[in-house]
């Protein structure tokens, strides 16, 4: 049985809650057991919808003393009284063993250009802290809103920075393929990559190392991404990479020393 490490899980009350879903750690752990997901990267909904500063603290609270849950911290372009400078945040991350960063450019209305994010990306790249760029926008559920040009620019400006893109590739892959071709440090998380035989296609065109399993629990049904990996026509070794090892390797690559 393949072991799954979910790169895209959220806890806490969120705006567009749907009846039948959940937001508590207890329910998440119970579902992880049901679906066969052994570990998960967690961010708190507040860090996506309201304040990374407060959300990051809530993320720590949710993941504390639970070995299967790993915290991710969200960054914003720093503004006094809203966010700490990136270097300060990274020192805090080290203290709490947080090995992944997250950006929500659409939720918080910023772009990835140097003038906006240069300070943060410099620091993340220096420490090899992988960054998930999440184009989730709760009010625009279907279109690909990924700013691929900016993603490619970031990957090229910071070739040592592992970049992971998630969300809204539902109806597109041509720009995705070009971006992956041009940027060896670009990785894709699977929770919204739903196209026909997409896992096999990317493993063949590029490498299994470029894909990370993720579900976007508790918003999406985790079975979609689980099924795409479990039934992909790739080797067991490739499945293991996609399902958990790639994410683990990226987290182990962080240099806090």
């Amino acid at each position: 049985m393949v072991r799954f490490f979910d790169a895209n899980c959220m806890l806490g009350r969120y705006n567009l809650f749907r009846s039948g879903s959940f937001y508590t750690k207890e329910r998440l752990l119970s579902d992880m057991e049901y679906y066969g997901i052994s570990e998960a990267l967690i961010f708190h909904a507040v860090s996506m919808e309201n304040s990374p500063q407060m959300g990051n603290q809530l993320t720590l609270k949710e993941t504390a003393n639970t070995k299967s849950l790993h915290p991710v911290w969200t960054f914003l372009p720093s503004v006094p009284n809203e966010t700490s400078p990136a270097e300060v945040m990274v020192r805090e991350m080290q203290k709490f063993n947080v090995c992944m960063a997250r950006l929500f450019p659409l939720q918080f209305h910023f772009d990835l250009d140097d003038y906006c994010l240069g300070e943060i990306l410099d620091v993340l790249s220096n420490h090899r802290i992988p960054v998930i760029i999440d184009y989730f926008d709760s009010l625009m559920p279907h279109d690909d809103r990924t700013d691929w040009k900016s993603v490619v620019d970031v990957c090229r400006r910071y070739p040592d920075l592992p970049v992971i893109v998630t969300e809204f590739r539902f109806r597109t892959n041509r720009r995705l393929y070009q971006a992956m071709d041009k940027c060896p440090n670009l990785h894709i998380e699977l929770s919204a990559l739903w196209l026909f035989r997409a896992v096999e296609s990317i493993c063949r065109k590029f490498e299994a190392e470029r894909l990370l399993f993720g579900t976007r629990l508790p918003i999406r049904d985790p079975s979609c991404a689980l099924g795409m990996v479990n039934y992909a026509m790739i080797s067991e070794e490739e499945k293991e990479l996609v399902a958990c090892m790639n994410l683990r390797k990226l987290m182990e690559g962080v240099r806090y020393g």
Partner: protein
Amino acid sequence: MARVEGKFLRLAKAGLPIKDELVIDAHTHLGGYFNLYHIPFGRAKGILEQLDRLGIDKICTFSFAGVNSDFTLGNDLVAQAVKEYPNRIVGYTTLNANYPDEWIPELERRRKMGLKGIKLICEYQGTTTGRTDFSPVYQYANERQMIIINHYWGSPQFLDGLADEYPNICFIIGHYAIEYAEVLHKRKNVYQCTCAALMYGDIEKLLRLVDASKVVYGSDLTDLDGPFGLAPILYAKVSDEDKRKILGLNMQKILDECRC
């Protein structure tokens, strides 16, 4: 709802094909090309490889070209696929809302080629089903007990009216929705497809409102990935008996009743 760890869940977790069960995918596309994205492995060989990998016996299929390009080219491709794989592919004729003069001749030509159903998808053709007078199509389908699957039927009231007026047509709601629950209760000739049930607990939510005997499994392959549509049913926290109906028994009953 009870958590039942049955046969289908075990197969899904192990990534094994479904065996000794009837599985019919009620909503698929073929053709290999689409303007919006590249379709890898999109030819018949690539489709059949995935069907075998998943354990799907048959697919009901329509073309990509029919969605937003030359629908007759698309129907040609479907007819060819039915001819090549008659035991695996059930073909549907896609109609373009903007060519009313061609609807009936096209249906007649395709019916003679063995296509059993009709696919409507007006939203990709600049209009809606409600704004298009498909009455000649409905009459044609009603006389022949045909299946019509539609991307979007519009309001439940609109679909209810059609199901009442044309009782011999099997109306399939092409994409996951819960808004038609009352119509599904009320009308024997209306079914709900699971296609794109991607939000948390969608299948369980649907089955709290609608009897499993009115739900058919559809994946949208090769638009979407086959397991993306199949896995929500295999993993759903519902009984294997319900899963069996959804995966194939209901669609087989519909096909058996279709006279076309």
